[in-house]
């Protein structure tokens, strides 16, 4: 048995055309490669700190 009030709350307004630019900027474009690069950077930083 669904809860109509809760279900209705799940529906959000659609973005209009003039809001497309904002939507594009807010789009999360990070992929696995970006995550790996971030991890590698963190690893490098961590190893550099150990050397010093």
């Amino acid at each position, binding site marked *: *048995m*669904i809860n*109509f009030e809760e*279900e*209705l709350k*799940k*529906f*959000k*307004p*659609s*973005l*209009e*055309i*003039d*809001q*497309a630019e904002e*939507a*594009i900027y807010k*789009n999360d*474009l*990070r*992929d*696995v*490669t*970006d995550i*790996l*690069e971030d991890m590698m950077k963190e690893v490098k930083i961590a190893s550099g700190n150990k050397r010093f």
Partner: protein
Amino acid sequence: MNCIKCNMPLENVYICPHCGHVDKVAKKIIYSSNWHYNQGLAKAKVRDLSGAVTSLSQSLKYNKRNTDARNLLGLIYYQMGEIVAALSEWVISVHFQERNNIAADYIQAIQNNPAKLKAANKVIQKYNLALNYVQENNADLAIIELKRVVNMSPTYIRAYQLLGLLYMQRKQYAAARKVLMRAVKVDRNNMTTLRYLKEVNHLHGKQEKNQHGRKDEFMQINDPNPIVIEEGSGHNYADYNTGFLSFINILIGIVIGAAVIWLLIVPSITKTKASEYNQAVVEYSAQISERNKNIDDLQNQITDLQSKLSQYESTVGNTVDDAGASEQKLIEAVGSYLQNNVQDAGTLIAEIEPAAITNAQEKKIYNILKEATKSSVTETLYANAKDSFDKKDYVAAIDGMTKVLRMDDSYSYAVFYMGRSYQMLGDTGNAAGYYKRLIQSYPNSDMVDDARKYLDQLGDTTSIDPVDISGGSTSDSNDNSEDNSSDNSDDDLGDNTDNGSLDNGDGSEE
């Protein structure tokens, strides 16, 4: 990501284009991304749009530079009615790959058709408006707006879902099911749609069971707001409450109203007018008839007056003529008498109608001459008249007997032959009148028996009175009538020439 050998960037490749080193990590990432893209493509081909979106999103999570996956994701968003999301994906796709990217064509196609873009934006605005109505607990207006939305954009999944949910909330399960089934046709494995549909099936089944005592799934019920899904080329959504159907209903109502007016009111008006017309015709006819009757009456009066006038003129003329002729004859009689021609004088006197003499002096002269000549001419006149009777000239006989009676109204034989002449001419009235005069005035006459006999032959004559034969005397000659009752019993019927037995009017016998 850069090559671990030469530190050159690796963009969407796992083999370094500079040193040829194969990056295993990048290879796994790209393979994974491609695998999800293939999954998404397979799902999109069977219209599992939601599944395709999930797979393609996963693919882009592995490799954001997977242009094919991003372009396909944009297409699927476009198919689902999410125009802005589609445009976003295509713009990002072009950002990562400016050349040889079909996304640029997609964007160009949309930009070259501003009307379509405007219509798509209007659809989004209406959907948002419907959502506002829902938040304001105004479900009726929200449903109306959502119907318009799904009509304008038949693949707008979220609109179908919201509309179906509102129908479910209003317990219009058949309508909700139809809407959700339409959404399923667009997106087969949309979890939200399938969940709503399952709920509808469950509630609808319960309702059916409660109403019919058995569990018949999805039997059509009396839906107060029925929905028709058009299956034409446009795949538009519609129901009976569209503006066009309302217009048709109004048109049908107008036609029915006009028909009712034509069939019920117009005949009544026509009948009333016909009745008024007939009544007017009757009134005018009555007036015309009355006028005609008045005209006829006036014509009759004119005719009567003309008749009376002509009769009067005739009477006056005859009287004048008679008076003139009688006066002339009287003068001639006087002349003859002065010349001692008594016979001619008496004959002229006998021809004079006493009533035609109006002058007192002339009447006096007339009476003097009559007394002086009647003894001389009466028998002669009688003989002539009897001769005419014997010759069956009854008109001449009547004229002659009339002269006799003018000279001597007590001449019973003349009275008898007057009756006989009239009888022979078929004039029963005058015949009976003279017979009765004879019987009444001269009961001792020899002709009485014959008069009775002939009177009996005439039949019923009780209504006929005796003829007045005293007209032969004028008003100033009373001495002429004093002997009317004298007895003529001695008259000889068989011998008319025998005048010795005739009463001469003064009571003496000649």
